[in-house]
């Protein structure tokens, strides 16, 4: 079978001696090598380009592109902040207890320190504080890490005095663990 297939090709060889035949084969080898090189180079270039496109900081940041996750982290963080920064003289323990589930890392340490300082004042002056996250924006969301900008309204009231409202803006770093977002760092802006 092989012989019959090569037969037409070998015909020129008989008329022109052995000269052109190795040359044709060399051509074929060169063409194949070129095709192989081109395909490998092209494939690698595509591979690299696709990798570049997928790993740009912009594409990795899922803020707004993953709407469910964006809403989830915004909700968890906003609700958490409201819980830990809301207390009444009789229930400051509740805020501290919430802190255990809402905060972790540096944020938890900061909060504990802060609370130790103000606890007596809070109780003595009968301060009531209620905090609400009025606006939440996700700056960055990458898998189980996120950074957010949160605008807070804080209404404080001393004993039976008139309530005063203060505005606060925070950047929050959060981490997804145990099926919820916990706040690991808080910075006032």
């Amino acid at each position, binding site marked *: 079978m*092989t*012989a*019959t297939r*090569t*037969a037409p090709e*070998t015909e020129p*060889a*008989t008329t022109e*001696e*052995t000269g052109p*035949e*190795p040359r044709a*084969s060399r051509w*074929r*080898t060169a063409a*194949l*090598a070129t*095709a*192989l090189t081109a*395909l*490998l180079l*092209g*494939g*690698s270039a*595509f*591979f690299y*380009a*696709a990798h570049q*496109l*997928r790993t*740009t900081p*912009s*594409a990795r*940041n*899922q*803020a*707004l*592109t*993953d709407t469910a996750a964006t809403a989830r982290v915004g909700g968890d963080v906003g609700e958490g902040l409201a819980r830990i920064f809301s207390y009444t003289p009789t229930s400051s323990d509740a805020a501290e207890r919430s802190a255990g589930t809402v905060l972790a890392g540096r944020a938890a340490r900061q909060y504990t320190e802060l609370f130790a300082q103000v606890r007596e004042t809070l109780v003595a002056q009968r301060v009531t504080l209620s905090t609400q996250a*009025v*606006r*939440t*924006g*996700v*700056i960055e969301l990458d898998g189980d890490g996120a950074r*957010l*900008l949160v*605008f807070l*309204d804080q*209404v404080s009231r001393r004993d039976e005095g008139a309530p005063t*409202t*203060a*505005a606060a*803006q925070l*950047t929050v770093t959060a981490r997804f663990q145990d099926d919820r977002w916990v706040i690991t760092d808080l910075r006032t*802006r």
Partner: protein
Amino acid sequence: MSGRREHPMTRAVRPRAGARPVLAAALGLTLVAGGFAAWTGQAWYAAAHDDSAAYAAERDRALAAGEQAVQNLNTLDHRQTDRGLDLWESSTTGELHRQLVDGREEFEGQVKAAKTVTTARVLAGAVTELDDRAGRARLLVALRVTVTTPDRKSTDKDSRMLGELTRTDGQWKLSGLGQAPVGGTATG
């Protein structure tokens, strides 16, 4: 059978016959390389036409333009009001742009009389809504504004702003800007 008859001819081609397994291997390799190229090619095409990546890029463009515009609108030097107010106008569009153009002379007079230099720095910003097709977006910006009076006293004021962006001619510009209301009292 025919092979045996052509035996004298094949002698001339012996080097080729020896190269045949090599040729087959090379062909196989080329096919594999072709498959590889086809696979990576479609992976690249998918990545290049990924809607969410394009949306993410648009989000970042809107944020960058929005932060810059908010900073521009909170920056003004009484010695260079023309340049500053031109920048205000080029950073805005729509209703906000009209307001700025209408109030320009009055505002210029006020700033020149007060001789203040106002600079601003964006502390943090985030896009909260983005309609890629309609070309509209909303953003939050935490801003530190520094006002320097003629007696060289400067005061810092932190503010939280809500901005509304509109895309015009492929560029994101502010079409609305105000302080985030505090305690339910709407101010902007």
